[in-house]
């Protein structure tokens, strides 16, 4: 990559510039003028005689071509000669052989005896200072009179050689200039010399073992590759590897694993021999050498990055025991908040990177899988009570190799108008050359309700009549048993590598009859087309199926848990002996909902990608990526006629909704990387993207069904809907990075972006970015001072950038639209809303700075980041003067700030030969603030009017009536006296809405521990904590309200432990129902035993016991403070209302490699 191209001034052949071979075509044409082919058959082989005049003209032409290249870095070259190439060490493997062209058909070539060939013995004198090989060959030809023919494709003619010789033989001269070129000199019958590529020599094998430098423990899944070739393997669980068929010669072997500093070793491979290269890798607490792609446009090591990047590897995902990728991300990186909104098996997840940056739009990050922008929408095709799947659930976590998480400004240049919420890029596994490696994973897990609500057991009703009370949770919840199977096979040759996998998940929820099934298959082929081109093609098919039970939510209340909460719990929900369900409840009978409703969703999805990579010359890389993501989701809902569901649903209800979605992205990326000077490295990128997104949704529903029938047409009142959407995004970007002496890196980038959702005037938006990284510990003064002893590694970084947000605006929201109406059976049009043609994307300016450093001889590393994100031009519908003829208009108004701190600490407290303990602590705090909202307060949709965006406050604060309080803030009772005794006093209410709580946590943290004991046993534990957030506990509110009275709170009121009338008084006192939602959860605990049975072809066998969400330390009185009945909604957070709680899972996982 960093091959030096020293400048040439004067050579015996004249002046020439060193030019990358980008303009070869031009150069070849010129060469044809002074070279003639030796035979028609040998196209491209030329003999050359020196011609100084022509060479000079050619040089000028080449110089002009160089200028045309116009990559900024090129201009920075100074015309100063830098250094001479070191002489090549003579070695039989690297020096050319002198052969005679074979005259027979055998193809065998006879070696020329150099000493007996007068031509080769003739003596010449030459002074060649750092000229190209081509020029050297010309000079030798001119000096000796020998015709020398060569082909550009076999001989690296740009290679810089040096020859300062007086009175040496021609053979010696040729030997010197051709050493290391991997070429032989073949003499034809007419005495011409042809420089030909040396035929491949027999390959050898490299074997070895990779261990942890500190503990000596074997390292599994280390990628070992032979540099410059495609040969590479992963180490097995005992740390060993074997790479066969490595061409003879000198090679560098590189061993890489995330979290370790890469190891490099030079080996000499000889034919049919085995050489050993063992590695001891040192844990790299800062992961400074880790290569990152996301947000950088070209593979970049962390040390060069001006921003924090989170990475999560396959091991961490596997050990999480989670069926969804986003769920597994919880706690794995700083600044990443993962919230599971529902405890259903396919339940929705919200991911927030550095807070929420929009009000109307989606606050989830952009997801990219292998370069394909994948859709993570949450289509609510049927209403399931706030629970809806986000479509990332279609992906199989077993296929994930690693994940990169980029937050803030860093994402700007590459993802432009889609980058406001950050980017999560998922890389799937790939095949490596070598014998097929088969893996199989089988998982069984049992999920159960972690905590039950205490129900009202008081045996009398309010009138004092005896009643029988039931716990309806008995008919709703059970232990759900699920299984997961996954298998993969990977392998290939150096030229063609493959990875094939299949997976099947059958997951039963803790609500009876709820089930999630996913079948997936993935294939990837990496094909080397030539030494300069390769192609990678991948595809994944996923089929997801969901059997749902509606529960809770902010919309309709026909679910099972609703039935339980609204009660009353004085009837037996189970069917009687005739199969008849009691309809004594306020809402649906939960047992009837579970037994008789049929709500289901199916999704078929294909995600495919193709990448063509071309490296025409050293340092230049062109990449073309085509990505496709398409899915069909179909949902059906059926409530039979005659259930106890309230309202029209009792007449029977049928609904179906479907949505097809297609997204295509075309990306082209050109990178040019060059060592301009020994102390200056440059990487330049240019790229472009075109993205299409098309979706169609249709829905139909009807009430009042004909008995027995289930489809929509059997109902009496129909409602149909359809919506079609198209979005197109185009963008171009450029990026320039300079690396100064491997310690200071400066990057500037810009992206120009256009999206079809915006009007022409505001369509094209520019998003600039600058960042810098300074590895201070590389400086001499650092290493020599006490700082170097305290912080062996120390890096400062900063980044600033702009990005945009697209999701807050519908695809056609900029048009003044007219809706179709019918009037007296005539078609009519009525205006709908006012145009927003002057609207532009929400724009974020992000600034971050940080320190990455290690302490205690690199045993502890930390990354500290402080960031400030300001998003302006928030898209909001504002009211307009009614005299315009309109009521509202979508406009850029409002702003959101997110300021915060992230800290990640990685340490190895114990590193002994038999015990290694790695620990990771992460801390993130974020402060969100909304401003610039018209009128100061905007109540958010789908929040029952109880969540708002308020100027100066975090988004989604709870806003409503609370306790009556006196001037000292003491709660008053309903008579205006200070409330002290709940047993005798009923609290008073102040109807004026005020801020009652904040669902946004003050800070979140996690603590992950990995302990390896001996070679076979490992343990892992992860604690996740969320602090300072509030939760609406509507479950308690309903259960305490006398007409429903299902929970213990009302039982206490009946028993007289709470003053009579309290439940009624608190019904509209929302302050009572806002609770502290802080928690610390035992998110993951696992023990894994791995061994190597070496029988049945099994190389590694691992057995893991995993516990997930085992316990939660919190003061919350409801099920779980983590769920959200608002689903994946941006502003409506922390609503607990009949949502299925997140289960406790016990997982047994067996994996085997063959």
């Amino acid at each position, binding site marked *: 990559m960093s091959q030096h191209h020293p400048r040439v001034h004067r050579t015996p052949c004249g002046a020439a510039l060193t030019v990358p071979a980008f303009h070869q075509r031009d150069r070849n044409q010129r060469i044809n003028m002074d070279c003639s082919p030796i035979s028609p058959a040998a196209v491209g082989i030329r003999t050359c005689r020196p011609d100084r005049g022509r060479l000079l003209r050619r040089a000028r032409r080449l110089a002009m071509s160089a200028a045309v290249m116009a990559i900024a870095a090129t201009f920075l070259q100074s015309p100063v000669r830098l250094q001479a190439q070191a002489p090549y060490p003579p070695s039989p493997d690297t020096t050319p052989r002198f052969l005679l062209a074979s005259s027979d058909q055998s193809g065998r070539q006879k070696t020329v005896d150099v000493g007996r060939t007068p031509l080769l013995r003739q003596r010449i004198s030459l002074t060649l200072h750092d000229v190209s090989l081509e020029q050297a060959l010309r000079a030798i030809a001119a000096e000796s009179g020998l015709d020398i023919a060569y082909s550009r494709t076999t001989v690296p003619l740009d290679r810089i050689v040096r020859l300062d010789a007086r009175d040496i033989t021609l053979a010696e001269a040729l030997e010197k200039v051709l050493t290391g070129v991997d070429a032989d000199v073949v003499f034809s019958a007419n005495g011409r010399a042809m420089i030909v590529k040396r035929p491949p020599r027999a390959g050898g094998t490299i074997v070895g073992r990779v261990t942890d430098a500190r503990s000596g423990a074997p390292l599994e899944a280390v990628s070992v590759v032979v540099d410059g070739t495609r040969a590479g393997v992963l180490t097995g669980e005992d740390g060993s590897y074997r790479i066969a068929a490595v061409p003879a010669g000198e090679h560098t072997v590189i061993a890489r694993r995330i979290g370790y500093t890469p190891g490099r070793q030079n080996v000499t491979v000889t034919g049919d021999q085995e050489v050993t290269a063992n590695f001891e890798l040192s844990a790299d607490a800062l992961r400074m050498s880790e290569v990152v792609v996301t947000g950088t446009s070209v593979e970049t090591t962390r040390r060069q990055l001006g921003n924090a990047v989170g990475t999560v590897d396959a091991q961490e995902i596997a050990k999480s025991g989670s069926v969804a990728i986003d769920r597994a991300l919880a706690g794995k990186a700083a600044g990443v908040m993962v919230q599971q909104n529902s405890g259903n098996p396919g339940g929705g997840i919200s991911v927030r990177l550095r807070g929420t940056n929009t009000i109307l739009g989606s606050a989830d990050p952009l997801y990219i899988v292998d370069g394909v922008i994948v859709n993570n929408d949450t289509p609510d095709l049927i209403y399931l009570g706030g629970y809806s799947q986000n479509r990332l659930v279609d992906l199989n976590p077993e296929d994930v190799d690693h994940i990169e998480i980029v937050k803030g400004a860093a994402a700007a240049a590459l993802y432009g108008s889609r980058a406001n919420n950050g980017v999560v890029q998922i890389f799937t596994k790939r095949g490596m050359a070598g014998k097929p490696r088969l893996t199989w994973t089988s998982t069984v897990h049992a999920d159960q309700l972690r905590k039950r609500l205490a129900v009202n057991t008081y045996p009398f009703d309010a009138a004092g009549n005896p009643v029988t009370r039931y716990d309806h949770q008995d008919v709703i919840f059970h232990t759900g048993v699920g299984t997961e199977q996954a298998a993969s096979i990977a392998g290939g040759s150096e030229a063609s590598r493959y990875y094939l996998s299949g997976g099947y998940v059958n997951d039963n929820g803790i609500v009876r009859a709820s089930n999630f099934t996913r079948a997936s298959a993935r294939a990837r082929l990496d094909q080397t087309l030539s030494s300069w081109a390769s192609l990678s093609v991948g595809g994944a098919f996923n089929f997801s199926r969901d059997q749902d039970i509606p529960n809770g939510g902010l919309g309709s209340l026909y679910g099972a848990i609703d039935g339980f909460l609204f009660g009353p719990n004085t009837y037996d929900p189970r069917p009687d002996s005739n199969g008849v369900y009691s309809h004594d409840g306020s809402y649906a009978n939960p047992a009837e909902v579970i037994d008789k409703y049929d709500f289901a969703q199916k999704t078929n999805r294909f995600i495919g990608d193709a990448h063509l990579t071309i490296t025409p010359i050293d340092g230049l890389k062109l990449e073309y990526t085509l990505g496709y993501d398409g899915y069909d989701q179909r949902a059906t809902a059926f409530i039979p006629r005659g259930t106890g569901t309230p309202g029209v649903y009792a007449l029977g209800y049928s609904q179906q909704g479907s949505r097809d979605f297609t997204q295509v992205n075309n990306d082209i990326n050109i990178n040019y990387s060059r060592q301009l000077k020994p102390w200056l490295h440059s990487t330049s990128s240019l790229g472009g993207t075109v993205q299409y997104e098309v979706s169609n949704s249709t829905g139909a529903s009807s009430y009042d069904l004909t008995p027995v029938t289930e489809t929509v047409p059997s109902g009496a009142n129909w409602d149909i809907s359809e919506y079609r959407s198209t979005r197109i995004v185009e963008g171009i970007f450029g990026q320039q990075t300079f690396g100064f002496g491997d310690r200071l890196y400066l990057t500037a980038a810009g992206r120009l972006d256009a999206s079809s959702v915006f009007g022409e005037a505001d369509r094209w938006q520019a998003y600039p970015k600058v960042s810098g990284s300074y590895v201070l510990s590389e400086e001499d003064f650092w290493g020599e001072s006490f700082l170097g002893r305290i912080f062996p590694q120390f890096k400062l970084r900063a980044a600033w950038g702009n990005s945009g947000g697209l999701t807050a605006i519908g695809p*056609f929201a900029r048009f003044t639209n007219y*809706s*179709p109406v019918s009037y007296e*059976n005539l078609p*009519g049009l009525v205006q709908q809303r006012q145009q927003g043609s002057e609207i532009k994307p929400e724009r974020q300016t992000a600034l971050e700075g940080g320190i990455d450093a290690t302490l205690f001889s690199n045993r502890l590393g930390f990354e500290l980041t402080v960031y400030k994100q300001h998003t302006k031009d928030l898209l909001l519908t504002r009211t307009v*003067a009614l005299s315009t003829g309109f009521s509202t208009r979508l406009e850029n108004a409002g702003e959101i700030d997110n300021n915060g701190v992230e800290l990640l600490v990685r340490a190895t407290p114990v590193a002994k030969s038999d015990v290694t303990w790695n620990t990771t602590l992460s801390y993130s705090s974020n402060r969100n603030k909304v401003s610039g909202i018209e009128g100061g307060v905007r109540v958010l949709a789908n929040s029952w009017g109880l969540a708002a965006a308020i100027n100066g406050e975090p988004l989604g604060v709870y806003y409503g009536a609370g306790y009556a309080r006196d001037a000292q803030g003491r709660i008053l009772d309903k008579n205006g006296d200070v409330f002290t005794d709940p047993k005798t006093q009923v609290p008073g209410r102040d109807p004026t809405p005020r801020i009652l709580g904040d669902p946004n946590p003050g800070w979140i943290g996690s603590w992950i521990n990995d302990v390896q004991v001996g070679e076979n046993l490992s343990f892992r534990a992860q604690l996740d904590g969320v602090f300072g957030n509030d939760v609406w506990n509507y479950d308690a509110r309903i259960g305490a309200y006398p007409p429903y009275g299902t929970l213990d709170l009302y039982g206490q009121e009946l028993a007289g432990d709470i003053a009579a009338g309290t439940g009624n008084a608190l019904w509209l006192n929302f302050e009572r129902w806002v609770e502290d939602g802080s928690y610390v959860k035992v998110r993951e605990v696992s023990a894994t035993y791995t061994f190597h049975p070496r029988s049945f072809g099994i190389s590694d066998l691992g057995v893991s016991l995993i516990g997930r969400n085992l316990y939660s330390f919190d003061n919350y009185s409801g099920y779980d403070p983590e769920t959200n009945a608002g689903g994946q909604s941006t502003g409506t957070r922390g609503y607990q209302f009949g949502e299925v709680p997140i289960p406790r899972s016990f997982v047994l996982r067996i994996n085997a490699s063959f």
Partner: protein
Amino acid sequence: MHTTIRNSAIGLVVLGATLGAAACSLNVTDPNSASEDKVLQSQDAIQALAVGLQQYYANNVLGTLYINTGVTSRELTINETYLGQVAIEEGGDQLDGSIGEMASIFGGEMEVLRTSELLLRQVPQIAFDPGTRSGILALAHLYSARAIGDLTTVFEQVPIHSDPDENAAFYSRNDALAVAIAHLDSAARILADTAPSTLFNSKIKSSRLDLLNTIDAYRARYHLFRGDLDEAIEASEDVDPAATSFFSYDAQNLNPFFEDLVQSRSYAARDDLGSPLTEAGDKRVSFFLTSDPAVSNPKQYPIDLLGGFFTSGTSPIPAYIPGEMILIRAEAYARQHVYDKAVAAIDSIRTKTAAQDPLGLGADLPPYSGAETEEALLTEVYRQRAAELYLQGLRLEDSRRLGRPGPPASLDERNRNYYPYPDQERRNNPNTPANPAN
């Protein structure tokens, strides 16, 4: 050769990317609804816009205006306790610009005005046949007049144009009514020049709307409001007394009184047509109301069941009442002190039987026997208007114009003289006048 492949590959990639970029236009059209720029260029869409204008007025504007002003002028009472409803019923200070109903009334009329203006501007640009063009233009003028006229019944000052720049000027009621009348004059002139086409009459105009007579009826109405008494008499005489004209309703567009007073009973009709002057034996009371012992919530006013033009979801609502023309003459003559003609007109209303009225409205009362003074006659005109024009959205205007007791002295017959301007308008349009005191 490799070089050739390499260069070709690079070329292909670049070409592919270029084509990809060129092939996709960022101007995506919306298949779900019609965008304005397209609507205004299409003959069919303009026709549909004219249909939509009538649908929107009948479905979204008429009911909001009639029912809310009905509560203000005590024709109706609220029967649910939503914030806005309570404020309308309380009136006085309780009714301020933050009440959503103020925005609904003002905004609805402004949307009608804007759509009418679009039609007036755009129809001449499109190649319609002359009869269709004249029909749509006349219709748009009629609705412009109606929107402005409606606004003058409830607001002290009103805009006469919609203004996209949020800077619409407000005009006095008299000036605004002059503009409304000018629209009606234009409509009449256009129809006189070119008769509407069959296409207009069958595919655009609402089936039971009598365009010419409605134009003249509104000319008479607005001239009367302005005090142009001769013009009002003249225009009222142009209306064919046997003609009827309706806003139609159908299964998709339900009669708003049926929805809010018959079906949901969110509002209710007060006993005796909500007028203290209603005479015993007036048969129009039983035309509109069926006696019922119920009382309203929360005010406990006695309420009756509503019938009349509101018995079903598809009952049409008259665009004007033929008797209004007679009462316009009665009022104008009374004001001109031509008492004999005034009394004759009043008597023709008082003695009219259901069979004699095209809409079946008959008071069937004895002739007028009161004093022949302007004041007494105007009181009698009000009495008759309250019954003859019950739920025509005119009670507030009549009560004010005919000098009935009102705020601040009394809230019994009307609780506001004029409505406050919607806060939403005030926030965004600097020309919004100060709110009237009451």
